[in-house]
């Protein structure tokens, strides 16, 4: 028997073989059909971008994730896209340049420089849908419902929808700006781990008690819908802006009209994904996966149109991660 040639791919990179490759392709088409029939226009942004313009307002953050190398032809730095939603926002602002509502959808390869801690991959297929130019609650509702429908259409059952508000988190973190960048990062990390004891050791007793208590309260505000009412009391000291965030979440839940099969979870202290989110953030889970299957949120102002921050809300999912949980026989 001929000896096998040893073959390897770069770390965090995989190739799809039969029958999985066809399965993924069928689900990819299913998603595009769903988005297009829901009124979203399909776009195919390029795999490569000029590094200097990658990411708009979130340039630095995206640059951290992107593979960057020199273009021998022009001498400029190029980046492989680590995210497509950001490209969609660029297309909305600079190509379509419309003041009306624009809905875009996409499915394509993304590559990240760092290996994802949980999935251990650097290259995957990202699918998503974004709504630009609509700051209404209806757009948020539409985006959340479409995210759930996407996962259901891919054959996922027993979904949990988690909601949070990036605005609320930043109102609290704003109060710690004076501590400097490094301490702020530590506090943010402690909040993302809900580690009350780390917050206590970072913020020594006595000084700034009330702000510390607010941050600790935020760590504990997760669970069912009752969390919103508890937050009204616990976060009262944050003032009307914070209460508005809570009212918004309440109103949003009322408008969602969730499928009874979908469980609702609130996590007010959640810091989710990219820092450019500034309104509602949402994510979906199933019991058998140890990580979120889809994430999204509002990110008004990532791009500007006529110097005005462009409203935006959308979600995306990692198709390769989701496929392994599908119950569909395809």
């Amino acid at each position, binding site marked *: 028997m001929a000896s096998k040639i040893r073959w390897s791919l770069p770390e965090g990179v995989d190739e799809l073989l039969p029958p999985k490759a066809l399965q993924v392709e069928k689900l990819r088409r299913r998603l595009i059909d769903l988005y297009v029939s829901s009124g979203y226009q399909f776009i195919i942004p390029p795999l490569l971008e000029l590094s200097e313009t990658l990411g708009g307002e979130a340039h630095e953050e995206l640059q951290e994730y992107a593979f960057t190398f020199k273009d021998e032809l022009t001498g400029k730095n190029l980046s492989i896209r680590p995210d497509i939603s950001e490209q969609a926002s660029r297309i909305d602002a600079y190509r379509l340049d419309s003041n009306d509502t624009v809905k875009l959808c996409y499915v394509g390869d993304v590559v990240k420089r760092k290996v994802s*801690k*949980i999935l251990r991959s650097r290259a995957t297929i990202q699918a998503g849908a974004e709504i630009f130019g609509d700051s209404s609650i209806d757009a948020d509702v539409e985006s959340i419902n479409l995210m759930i429908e996407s996962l259901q259409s891919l054959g996922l059952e*027993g979904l*949990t929808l*988690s909601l949070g508000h990036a605005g609320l988190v930043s109102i609290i973190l704003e109060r710690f700006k004076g501590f400097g960048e490094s301490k702020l990062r530590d506090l943010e*990390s402690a909040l993302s*781990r*809900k*580690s*009350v*004891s*780390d917050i206590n*050791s970072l913020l020594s007793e006595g000084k700034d008690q009330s702000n510390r208590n607010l941050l600790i309260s935020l760590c504990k505000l*997760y*669970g*069912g819908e009752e969390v919103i009412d508890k937050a009204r009391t616990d976060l009262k000291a944050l003032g009307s802006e914070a209460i508005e965030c809570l009212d918004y979440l309440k109103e949003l839940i009322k408008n969602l009209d969730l499928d009874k099969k979908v*469980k609702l*979870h609130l*996590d007010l202290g959640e810091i989710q994904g990219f820092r450019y989110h500034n309104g509602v953030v949402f994510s979906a*889970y*199933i*019991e*058998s*996966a*140890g*990580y*979120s299957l889809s994430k999204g949120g509002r990110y008004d102002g990532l791009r500007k149109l006529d110097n005005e921050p462009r409203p935006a809300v959308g979600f995306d999912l990692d198709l390769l991660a989701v496929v*392994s949980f599908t119950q569909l026989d395809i």
Partner: protein
Amino acid sequence: MISTEDKLILALPKGRVFEECLPLIQDSKFQLLDDPSATRKILLDTATPEVKVLLIRGWDVPTYVTFGAAHVGIVGKDILLEKSSEEFIELEDLHIGKCRISLAGKKEIIEGRTRLKVATKYPNTAKRFLESLAIQAEIVYLHGSQEIAPLMGLCEAIIDLVDSGKTLKENGLEEIKVIREISSRMIVNKAALKTKNVLIKEIRSTLIS
């Protein structure tokens, strides 16, 4: 990857912390059905059929919980500080497994130093601590018995867990500086906190009662 739906895996670290955890769960609905000292099983049944206890090394607990292969874990803060890049919720300080992580050496060795060679199994903590004193760390990674390393000329100091301080003394070392107090924490997988919130709440109240 979790294959058992509607199940909850509680990962406990073998050794001293496990002994301290046992009284917390015995007499509760999560009491172990097997006698852990008599069985060699790694996955143990509890009085609640949907909850199982996974008995592994403390260093592996954050990894299991980050991936969601275990949903809840108990692990020392010393290990969490090293594994800070893993992603999990650090839900509760259980105030068990108490000790401290300290710098120890033959005599006063941090005054006026710019470099220091330390043996440790906590390279991240060691580096962070020495950097905060503006000392460049030369780390010698050792799996165990750090106390003997200075005497053998491998390094000048060690950074390790200290409980009573007896081991240090017996090996001619002094505890020079306490870096931080350590205790065991209850950690939770990020997704499980959302999908298994009710069961996790029950485990939490059992552990902190």
